[in-house]
């Protein structure tokens, strides 16, 4: 695939932002009686986004908004990494929207919920497509503000507290990013990522740009909930309605945090040995701390939220390891392997963590509690939820042949090849901790004695089951993405190449 020859794509890129945005503003028109119509419309929008994302795989192109050529105007860029993220957002939002069709009947103001949901999707799609750093900030804020509101959607004690905490830390993160953008503009005189990158290459990093890089790492790190910045996540993700937890843990922290971080570090500033080490340390800290904190939890969703921090550590570790090898001038094949592991884990985590949150929502809706001590013996009452939960748990713990096994295997192999034996040991160890925490979930939720008050528990129906089964099938089949070469060369390899190419990004975009 040679991006310099393919000028445009067959898909006009703004539709990824326009479809959810238009839907978001159409939805509040529906009155309380038109709830069904609103649900159908929102589901149509997410499904069409998924179809578009699948169609965009393997393509690359640039779209100039309003025909203003760069660097004067804003451009949208589709490359391997963007389409990987678009795919993840499409899959998770489709499943979460299908799930909310029934789950959100418990809440009032469903149309408003759907509208905020679509705004969040619009923001995330915008972030992964934008080629302009200030535009990226704007989309980041759209997605963040929608998610703050969605976390507090229940308006109960816990939800409001979690939402406030999330909003304060999220806003500080956004302001850091804006400050970074201002510093970058002051030092390079451009807002387009390709031109910034070119200016940095010719002038080198000065103190102002170095400070901007620190601000970006802190700001996006806050959004990604890497360990020193993770305080908000274990409160915010469990308090949100289950489909929103799935969206937040599944894609929001990745699109706003990990994606933006890697784009800025790899393609704009260029990876150096110190930033590579920084990413590795952040990743390892998140993995270990997240796993230890998760094992001690008794709240089902809180346990899953902590394990999200831990799993996100794997992604950042893989990407950082690859970056370090590149910066040292090491073997490019090993670097590609480490980055492949990280990105594949990102995609896997999006699928199985959203599935886990959906099953937790299904359990919560049937039993009315999230405390694992008050549950037990649900295996017979809720067979489908149980089966899908086992598949997701096996995936996240890395049991072959489920998807999580492959990405962890790749990471371990990459770490060993690069002679980071201790990193490989930590990866295996954290994987074991993950297995323990999900065995705990199985033991206390689905096995054991059924408490008196839960005798009447029933399995949930219709769309909730469809959403869970859809994701469970993906969990089983995702391993094919690395095993089948043609799938890998279409979906994962272009994304890896974007990162290994690093600063060549600017030349590609400018010549396009």
């Amino acid at each position, binding site marked *: 695939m040679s991006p310099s020859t393919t000028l445009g794509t067959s898909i006009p890129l703004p539709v990824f932002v326009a479809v959810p945005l238009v839907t978001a503003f159409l939805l509040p028109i529906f009155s309380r009686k038109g709830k069904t119509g609103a649900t159908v419309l929102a589901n149509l929008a997410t499904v069409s986004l998924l179809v578009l994302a699948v169609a965009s795989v393997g393509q690359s192109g640039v779209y100039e908004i309003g025909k203003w050529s760069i660097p004067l105007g804003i451009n949208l860029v589709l490359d391997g990494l963007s389409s990987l993220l678009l795919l993840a957002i499409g899959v998770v939002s489709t499943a979460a929207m299908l799930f909310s069709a029934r789950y959100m009947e418990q809440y009032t103001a469903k149309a408003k919920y759907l509208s905020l949901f679509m705004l969040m999707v619009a923001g995330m799609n915008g972030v992964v497509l934008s080629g302009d750093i*200030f535009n990226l900030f*704007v989309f980041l*804020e759209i997605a*963040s*503000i929608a998610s*703050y*509101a969605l976390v*507090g959607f229940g*308006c*109960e*004690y*816990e939800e*409001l*507290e*979690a*939402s*406030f*905490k999330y*909003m*304060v830390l999220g*806003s*500080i993160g*956004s*302001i850091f990013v*804006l*400050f970074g*953008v*201002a510093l970058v*503009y*002051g030092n390079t005189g451009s*807002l387009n990522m390709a031109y910034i990158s070119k200016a940095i290459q010719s002038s080198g990093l000065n103190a102002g740009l170095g400070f901007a890089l620190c601000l970006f790492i802190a700001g996006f790190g806050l959004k990604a909930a890497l360990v020193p910045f993770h305080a908000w996540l*274990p*409160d915010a993700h469990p*308090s949100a309605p289950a489909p929103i937890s799935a969206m937040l843990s599944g894609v929001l922290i990745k699109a706003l945090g990990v994606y933006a971080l890697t784009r800025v570090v790899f393609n704009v500033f260029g990876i150096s040995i110190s930033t590579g080490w920084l990413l590795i340390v952040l990743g390892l800290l998140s993995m270990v701390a997240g796993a230890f*904190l998760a094992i*001690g*939890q008794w*709240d089902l969703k*809180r346990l899953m939220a902590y394990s999200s921090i831990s799993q996100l550590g794997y992604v950042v570790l893989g990407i950082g390891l690859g970056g370090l090898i590149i910066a040292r001038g090491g073997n490019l094949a090993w670097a590609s392997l480490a980055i492949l592991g990280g990105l594949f884990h990102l995609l896997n985590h999006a699928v199985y963590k959203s599935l886990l949150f959906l099953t937790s929502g299904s359990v919560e809706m049937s039993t009315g509690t999230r405390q694992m001590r008050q549950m037990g013996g649900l295996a017979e009452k809720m067979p489908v939820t149980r089966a899908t939960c086992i598949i997701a748990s096996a995936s996240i713990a890395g049991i072959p042949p489920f998807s999580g096994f492959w990405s962890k295997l790749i990471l371990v192999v990459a770490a060993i090849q690069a002679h980071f034996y201790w990193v490989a040991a930590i990866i295996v160890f954290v994987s074991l901790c993950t297995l323990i925490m999900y065995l705990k979930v199985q033991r206390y939720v689905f096995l054991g004695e059924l408490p008196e008050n839960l005798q009447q528990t029933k399995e949930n129906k219709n769309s909730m089951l469809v959403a869970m089964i859809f994701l469970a099938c993906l969990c089983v089949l995702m391993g094919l993405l690395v095993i089948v070469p043609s799938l890998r060369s279409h979906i994962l390899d272009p994304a890896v190449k974007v990162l290994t190419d690093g600063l060549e990004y600017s030349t590609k975009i400018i010549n396009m």
Partner: protein
Amino acid sequence: MLYALCFLLFVIGLYCAVVKKNMVKIVIGIMVMEYAVNLFLIMLGYRIGGIAPIIDRGQLESGTNQITTAFLSSSVDPLPQALVLTAIVISLGSLALMISICIRTYEKYGTFDITEIRRLRG
């Protein structure tokens, strides 16, 4: 010097947001940070004695080259102003949401003190 003062304002806002116990004061701290960044953006494009970045028709008639060099050396940079306008609108949106959550929290808990609003643990 001015940049240092602007950064000081940013740090004061950050301090206020991190240390204060009252929810409304935290919100004020965040807004102070936001304004410090906006001020910084405006200062980037500012030029002492600069003119508005607009060329009117009367100027154009007296030779284009001459005008552009004079214009480039004396006008302020309009781009940061556009950025700040966008940033202000965004911060208005998040301010409105923050304040409404503060109000709802006060209705539930009867206090703005975050040390007393602690139901989430672990």
